[in-house]
């Protein structure tokens, strides 16, 4: 009989893991996937597109029911796991049901952070994480809706864009002096800001939220400088927190996320974790690509093959339609680095490649990101550019045609 593999979480990481196990050792495990959201695993990256009306709900489903069946997976969604018994090797569901496992994978993802400010629990204050959030926003928006998005990071911008596409009047407030400061240098951030403003989104930088105000529901956001922004809806997009409580309660090692080693094993060798709930070498990732990298490694190991995860050089793709933004590595440029820059304000294009000793270590691209992955590959390879350098900033076709 096959070993029982239980996966808690029905998100993108879980789907990828199943897919990879299917490639390597179909039938080796009898797999059960437990998902809290009452639907098939879907592509969370498309939530802003869904909000913007660019895709249909059905388009977001990662794998259809037949696929899951073909993988031999039992799907148990709409039910949340409430406890893990590491001794008994069981998972307890909120229905009280107890699921035994031989191997357990925790893929519970993350939860949006709500600012610890007054009024954040008022009706009309939403986060941007799942289908329910999008449904709530779509239900609440009309052309007269005034939406304030708190947080100028990736998620906040995607939410602001999506809301703006629904016709809402959107103001994006951000504590820092530039948008996406963890992914963009100042010049790229300015271009992005201009582009968003050109699409009708009002951007306020250096704006520190003091409180959300309202009697029965949201009415305004008050800033620490005293300004008050009228609002019918507030979206908090200030960051995420790994969903590690289940693991913590089970006595597994947890810092910010569930601590895993290079084999994605937690402190209990029978239990693994991956994706946004995991913490690897001190890093909790918030993007899909590391989760996919981890899924491949974990699938291999579960199938008895040697594999190790050494971390992912982070690349950021802002997936807002018609506004490509990409960054990776040291895009700011630390001491001792050199920058190659191409900018064409007329085309809203900006490209910067950061080199150290002629080796690419970072990049930021705005307006045209087709070469981002190639740059990322060069950054990961860590080789000197040599003659490629001359035209590299213009992209792969130019550089390699040289």
């Amino acid at each position, binding site marked *: 009989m096959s070993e029982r593999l239980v996966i808690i979480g029905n998100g993108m990481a879980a789907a990828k893991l199943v897919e990879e196990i299917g490639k390597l050792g179909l039938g080796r495990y009898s797999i059960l996937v437990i998902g809290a959201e009452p639907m098939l695993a879907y592509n969370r990256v498309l939530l802003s597109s869904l909000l913007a009306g660019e895709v249909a709900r059905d388009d977001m489903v990662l794998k259809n029911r037949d696929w899951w069946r073909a993988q031999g997976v039992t799907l148990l969604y709409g039910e949340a796991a409430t406890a893990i018994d590491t001794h008994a090797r069981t998972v307890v569901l909120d229905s009280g049901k107890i699921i035994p496992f031989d191997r357990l994978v925790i893929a519970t993802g993350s939860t949006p952070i709500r600012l610890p400010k007054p009024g954040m629990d008022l009706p009309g204050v939403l986060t941007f994480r799942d289908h329910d959030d999008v449904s709530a926003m779509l239900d609440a928006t009309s052309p007269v809706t005034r939406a304030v998005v708190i947080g100028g990071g990736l998620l906040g911008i995607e939410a602001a864009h999506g809301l703006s596409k629904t016709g809402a009047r959107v103001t994006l407030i951000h504590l820092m002096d530039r948008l996406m400061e963890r992914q963009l240098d100042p010049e790229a951030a300015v271009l992005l800001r201009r582009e968003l403003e050109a699409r009708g989104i009002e951007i306020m930088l250096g704006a520190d939220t003091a409180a959300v105000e309202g009697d029965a529901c949201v009415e305004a956001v008050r800033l620490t400088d005293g300004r008050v922004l009228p609002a019918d809806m507030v979206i908090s997009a200030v960051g995420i927190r790994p969903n590690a409580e289940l693991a913590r309660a089970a006595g597994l090692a947890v810092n910010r996320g569930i601590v895993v080693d290079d084999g994605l094993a937690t402190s209990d060798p029978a239990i693994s974790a991956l994706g946004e709930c995991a913490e690897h070498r001190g890093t909790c990732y918030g993007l899909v690509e590391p989760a996919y990298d981890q899924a491949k490694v974990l699938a291999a190991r579960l199938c008895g093959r040697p594999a190790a995860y050494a971390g992912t050089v982070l690349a950021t793709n802002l997936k807002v339609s018609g506004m490509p933004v990409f960054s990776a590595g040291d895009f700011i440029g630390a001491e001792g680095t050199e920058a*190659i820059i191409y900018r064409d304000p007329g085309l809203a294009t900006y490209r910067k490649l950061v080199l150290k000793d002629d080796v690419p270590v970072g990049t930021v691209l705005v307006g045209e990101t087709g070469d981002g992955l190639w740059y990322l590959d060069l950054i990961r390879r860590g080789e000197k550019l040599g003659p490629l350098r001359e035209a590299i900033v213009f992209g792969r076709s130019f550089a390699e045609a040289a």
Partner: protein
Amino acid sequence: MNALGTLPKPVATACPYCGVGCGVLMTADASGAITASGDPDHPANRGRLCVKGSALGETIGLEGRLLHPMIRSRSGTLERVSWDSALSATAEGLSRIARTHGPDAAAFYLSGQLLTEDYYAANKLMKGFVGTANVDTNSRLCMASSVAGHRRGFGSDTVPGTYEDLDEADLLVLVGSNAAWCHPILWQRMLATKQARGARIVVIDPRKTATSADADLMLAIRPGMDAALFSGLLVHLAETGALDRAYIDAHTTGLDQALARAREIAPTLAATAITCGLPEADVATLFAWFTANPRVVTLYSQGVNQSAQGTDKVSAILNCHLATGRIGRVGMGPFSLTGQPNAMGGREVGGLANMLAAHMGFSGTEIDRVGRFWGAPRMAEREGLKAIQMFDAVEAGSIKALWVMATNPAVSLPRADAVRRAMAGLDHFVVSENMLSNDTVNSGAHILLPAAAWGEKDGTVTNSERRISRQRPFLPLPGETRPDWWIIAEVAKRMGYGEAFDWPDVASIFREHAALSSFENRGSRDFDIGGFSHLSNSDYEVLAPVQWPVRTPTDLGDKRFFAEGGFFTPDARARFIAIDQPDLKAEPDPAFPYLLNTGRMRDHWHTMTRTGKAPTLGRHRVEPLLEIHPDDAAVEGLAAGDLAEVTSTHGKATLRVAVEPGQSRGSLFAPIHWNGETASHGRIGALVQPFTDPWSGQPEMKATPVSLTRVAPGLEGFILSHGAVDLPAGTVWARAAIDGGLGTVFAAPQGLDAPALARTLKPEGGSISEFEDAARGVYRAAIFDGERLVAVLFAALGGRPSWSWIETQFGAPELSPLARKALLSGRSPDGLADAGPTICACFAIGLTAIKAAIAHGACDVDAVGVALKAGTNCGSCRPEIKRVIETLNGQARTLA
């Protein structure tokens, strides 16, 4: 571009460049653009044209033209005035100076660019009415030594042969001539003769050139030793019994003295070889070929003429042809290749200071004859100052009034910087010009007279084989421009000589010129076109190209001279000349260890006032080069592409180094064309020494001792712009026409703030697209006005890429995003697939690839993923891929 509408039919005229004198047909197409093609009916070129002639249509635009008279105000600026004011001021100044300081305080400096009728009018005014022979021309720099050599040997300035001789020769010897670049159409005829007759070609030149590349024998002679080689040849001819005793006895005098001198100079073949720095076997080959081939034409150009012994060099060549009787007969003779379209016409009218008029000199009889013909009150009584002395006199202050027409002495004369300074000190400085700005105008000209340019002028020119061709206008006179002859006549009228200058049209000047040539001639002078003395205006209009002499209206005899003697000396015999020991005026020394040779590039002409307008011609060489032998370059630590400062006792230039194995060691070559308008440090004339030939007054422009210093170029780059861009002092730059504007290359040894420079090129409301690799010193900018590219700046440490592709984008109304990017990459995107908008960001897959995969059978999103990986990572592009599939399927259905 001059507006012309449509031409009813092509206008047949003459090319304004070299002395070959090709016929060109100027044709307007439907858009009004005018193009040049070779005139198949013209005997000089039979329909062919070189690259310069072919690009004539690019040179007729009005950019930079001087379109109305101007006078320099007290504040130093040039201000527009009426023609009457300008003409009166010109006349008043000339009269005043001549009255106060004597006629010799006035001078004209003319040009082989002038038409014969212009030349005639100027010569008549000065030599007959102002009363001075201070009329010289830039032909002094070009073929004065040939004139002097001809006169000394033949008694007249006669080119004995015709171009047909080049078709009929068995041996063609080119001395000091890079005909492949400087007389390309004649060179093509010579190559055809080589093909058709098996004729051999010998090139004698200190450096290997495009001409020597096709030679059967190349003699890389020591500079200045041409006369030694021909002395050796004369000795060889004498010793091998190859002399034509019958011809010598019947038609010449002086062989013994000439031969004796030749034996002193080059007693043996071995001695000749050593003196000339040539392999003995090569010298022997030349001598053997010359001896064995009666049909030999010896062609010579600036390598012979531009020498302090140029006249002796010509004589040494003539000696060999006279001694073998190889002159004036089919396929043989000495042949001077003239540099300018109308150098010969200028010689005919007496445009040189040591000629009076119509091939007459300054004997009492001749002065009297010309004086009577002109009805002139104040004939010049002696030769005037030749160009170099003329400008020495300007410098010394003894010449106080100077009128420069159609030439740019501030660039072209030796010691050009000193010439520029000297002209600034003139009391009365008049310039007749096409262009508003050039080095001569900017030397402080007081009065600018806007002259008609080629394409607008009407008259005649004479080419190297004495063929007179009509130059016909095909463009209206722009602005207030006027023909040179009209300007001169109007000034003459204001000086009180109205009657003698009252020509109603240009044909009347030609008739007067023709009548003077036959006036009391009776066969005593070679130049006789009396047959045209009564040519009607309508016959003048349709005059077909014709060689002189034309003694009667129906003179159709053989146009060669001297086959049966008949020289224009008192005894009708030719003179052999005992020449001086060949020597350079100045030898290299430790302080100036190299000899600077000067000359032309393939696609430029003189000081570029015309060729500089043609993008087609600017592409060959954008900046002035210094050619140097690889071993010398190694000694100096120079590599190709470096900058070198070249210094003589007279001046400096900074040039781009070209390492050329074809250069002789110790010898450098630099082009003459660049000037203050086209290069910051390229005025080669400034370096050239002023030593002149005692007979011809022609300066030794091809052997100036110089020193070399490497200049670290610092930041280098180029700018493409619509107008001229001012660069900071100390920047070394050169400028060339490109399609839609100007291309400027620069090197900034002291550095340059390139981003700041780019900002100065940005129009109000424009935008700058930039590329920086600061660590490598790379900065590039494309400057846009809206969507239109208005300027491009490239700068880098260590070299610069080509702008050829960028130039094609310059002036385009709008550039694609790919082209905008390609622009700054400096590379054409041709061959680079345009990826289209990126669909899959994770794997960088563009729309183009996705459409291709669908076309190749990928029927759904997963199939596209299998083919391209697109959509297989984050999946966010899958909906878009799906839409692409649906759209394409929809189109397919519609088509089906």
